[in-house]
């Protein structure tokens, strides 16, 4: 089990790193997903360590996975609209940073 715990920590850190250093919006989203998966992994390892096998973290992770898909979908829809706004050219780019102008 130790190896999965280490894996969870490393994935968490990779997600963290990506979230803070990536410029591209989509990449940040991917990092966030990696981060969340790391947390799920920890929960499942905890369930696995318990005797007997604990169903509650499994249910929590299932709930979490569906929530993660929903938030990813919302985030993707947002990213698309932002990318569209910043480059109406045929080749929209996600790496444009959102402007700081005010309403």
């Amino acid at each position: 089990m130790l190896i999965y715990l280490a894996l969870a920590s490393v994935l968490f850190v990779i997600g963290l790193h990506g979230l803070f250093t990536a410029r591209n919006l989509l990449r940040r989203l991917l990092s966030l997903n990696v981060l969340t998966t790391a947390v799920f992994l920890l929960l499942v390892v905890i369930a696995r360590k318990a005797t007997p096998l604990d169903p509650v973290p499994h249910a929590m992770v299932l709930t979490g996975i569906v929530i993660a898909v929903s938030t990813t979908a919302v985030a993707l829809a947002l990213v698309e609209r932002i990318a569209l706004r910043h480059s109406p050219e045929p080749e929209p780019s996600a790496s444009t940073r959102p402007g700081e102008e005010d309403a």
Partner: protein
Amino acid sequence: MTAGDAAVIVLVSLPHAAAIAGFVWPSRAVTVSLISAATLMAAALVAMHAVAGYGAWRHDVGGWEAPLGIGWTIDGVACALLLLTAAVGLAGSIHHAAARVRPSTAAHDPRYFWPLWLFLWGGLNALFVSADLFNIFVTLEFVTVASVGLIALSGRLAQAAAWRYLLATLFGSSVYLLGVALIYGRVAALDLPFLAQALPADLVGMTAASLVTIGLLLKGAVFPLHFWLPSAHARALPPVSAILSGVVVAAAFYLLARAWLGPFRELLTPAAGTALGLLGAGAVLWGGLLALLQRHLKRMIAYSTVSQLGFCMLLFPLAAAGATQLAWTGAMVVLLAHGLSKAACFLAAGVIVRHHRSGRVDALGGCQQGIGLAWFAFALAAASLVGLPPTGGFVGKWWLAQAAINSGAYPWLALLVAGTLLTAAYLWRVLEAAIRTGPPDEARRPAAIAAHREGAPATPSDRGMMIAALGLALGAVAVGAAAPPLAPVLSSAIGVTW
């Protein structure tokens, strides 16, 4: 089922049902929303009455008891926040219904406002009663998605802000969930009152506590994790800004308070308390300073949220120093008064900005004909934010100050005074600009806007919006009167160790 239980069930389920109705029948959405807003207000009052009358109680959802099932705790604080949500929600609903945004001119798609708004409300209600760490995670995500949808509604400029908000809060939830996972691995329980008995203060507990705290600090936009807040709150529609600044941010602080005075009570050493207090101090000073420097009214109000929540953070050092009960009631009253007055500010600002067709502080002078009521509401709310007697802000800060004096923590007293002065300074800038007869620099305004400087006479729609703002501001004042008798109710909180 008692009346209190019924009220709580209505509070949790009615907004969701109404949201679905609004989604399925967009043409009926306004009616449905206003009716359910009024019902929710009534239900919140019934719940508060029940708590005041019979004391706090638990409701085991599904009939399953603590370690296995999810529990709701309905106590004084929860009811106060439910009431706050109901007040801001009702006022915001009236404000938005009165605004009558034409679909052709709206930057947003008006069909989706009501479902998102009601879902946000329902999520917040579910959050305030929940006593289960994982259920709180789910409700937090619920609130996040609803907030993001609402922010993104107000046009393309807001989408970038919504994105930053989404990313920050999702990150916050992941970190929070990591903390929850560690706690679960340690004691196999998620229930807050249960954990208050069971969670030991060891390495795992400390790691979990710091993770949960970081996650909630991000969601609560506590300094220095406030970077996402100003543009998100400033760019949304007025009612959305109101509920985000007044309630959503408060929810994060509420959870923080419940967690630290509950399961993490033993970890709340003077050092930990001071660390959290220093974050609050940073928020008060830095947020206040930035608010002072803002040129746009809504941005200024948004930075003021960062600053005001800093006051609430003083709960932790003062509780660690021993004045728990007084600090708790003080912080909660500040939270409530801030929620009401900040929402009033945003709603009033919505009218003011619409009237002047500009959000710049130095463009707010000149003819105020027709929006006097809005300025009155703004001034009342400002008085409460500053903490002038007899407003709620005054009572809350007074109790915090007393707690500081009682526990001999004078530096925090100094911070309270400094923060109050800073608040007065930035709010005075706005009121002063309003009193001026004309904008100082005519040339800085576009001609088209200058032509409208006279402003239009108040329409019924304006009046409805202003009354909503005024109601909230009066509520902030009323908290000042109601707080002393209700103090024992406010400090009834299940799972909190004094």
